[in-house]
């Protein structure tokens, strides 16, 4: 079908109002490219393109529920049911899911309920910095395996904090000027103790501490 200005404008209007555009079969590559370009432009509008808090929380609950089901029943695990998504219209999940990657066990087996639910399980100690390289009191960012965090030296002790914002999971920056962690996504802020300092409707959780030890002058983090 050939494209025309009216049809394309209906598509644009849908995007501008954050509506799902009408399904329009197109054989013309230009018409498809025009729509992809419209999407790119739409996303460039200041403030567009961030997930809503409701969506992020709903998804998180779905994933948590799925994890719960599968850690409780370690039989060969089916993929997530559509219903577990709790989302409208999320079709196509079933297609080719497990094909592309080696499927491993997802969760360590039913970890005994522990009060210290750790960020990392089945990991190893990994050296990340020399103690001598850490300044007193100033957080230093590091990344090791799956962990992104900050190390803060106080005397000869070192504290580790996760650098993942507890709002929506962006990686925090440290502002030396304001001596706090700042989220580039939605502006959440945390003291260097990990305590949240911003005014959200529901207070954010603290930044989780990381497991840190010092071995022969090397600061090591328990990581995967």
């Amino acid at each position, binding site marked *: 079908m050939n494209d*025309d*200005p009216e049809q*394309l*404008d209906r598509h*644009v*209007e849908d*995007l*501008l109002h*954050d509506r*799902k*555009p009408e*399904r329009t079969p*197109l054989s013309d590559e230009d*018409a*498809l*490219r*025009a*729509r*992809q*370009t*419209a*999407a*790119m*432009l*739409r*996303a*460039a*509008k200041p403030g567009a*393109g961030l997930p809503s808090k409701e*969506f992020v929380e709903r*998804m998180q609950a*779905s*994933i948590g529920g*799925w994890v719960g089901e599968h850690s409780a029943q370690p039989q060969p695990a089916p*993929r997530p049911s559509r219903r577990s998504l709790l989302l409208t219209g999320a079709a*196509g*999940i079933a297609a080719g899911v*497990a094909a592309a*990657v080696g*499927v*491993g*066990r997802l969760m360590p087996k039913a*970890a005994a309920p522990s*009060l*210290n*639910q*750790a960020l990392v*399980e089945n990991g190893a*100690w990994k050296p990340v910095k020399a103690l001598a390289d850490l300044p007193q009191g100033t957080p230093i960012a590091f990344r090791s*395996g*799956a962990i992104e965090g900050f190390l803060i030296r106080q005397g000869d002790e070192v504290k580790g904090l996760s650098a993942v914002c*507890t709002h*929506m*999971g962006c*990686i925090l920056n440290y502002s030396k000027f304001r001596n706090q962690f700042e989220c580039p996504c939605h502006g959440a802020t945390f003291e260097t103790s990990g305590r949240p300092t911003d005014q959200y409707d529901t207070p954010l959780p603290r930044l*989780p*501490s990381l497991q*840190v030890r010092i071995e022969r002058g090397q600061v090591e983090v*328990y990581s*995967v």
Partner: protein
Amino acid sequence: MGEDKTGGAALFASPAKVVSLPQAAAPSGQDHLTWAYQTHVTAIYQYIYSRVGNRPDAEDLTAQVFMKAISGMRNDVSVPELRSWLYRVAQTTLADHWREYYAEDAGELDDDVTRPPAPRENPEAVHRVDALLATLPESYRRVLELRFLRGYSVRETAQELSLSETNVKVLQFRALNRAGRERGRMS
């Protein structure tokens, strides 16, 4: 000092400072998948949003990506592996979306979705748009800026540009088609 607690993981920087990790809010705790989700949901959502340009599709597709990805994920992936795995799933999900939604026959993919994405895609999105707009003739650039970046309605755009509403739609049509071809050339 004690080398170990349950699970073989608890040793802290100083024995006097054993910090208990805060209780995670979710009943399932801070497991690997939840962590993977939290650290990447915003980036993946933005990646998808910049390709579909609307919230309902972006939410559906993001949900699909995570549900596909976690069902195939090992629990010992590194951050770079995880990131590229999520983006790869996002790409194939988007390709399927375009195919199902728009193509009359499942033909070739748009090259945009087969190319590996830049790891830090979103901070660059604005620059990519600027670069694209800079390739366009003035009138095309104006109409796209007014409609998309400033959110003008067709009527407002018509007033601003002293055109009829029909002409605005035609101009927008030509501008998007031209920009789409320029984008193909740039990529």
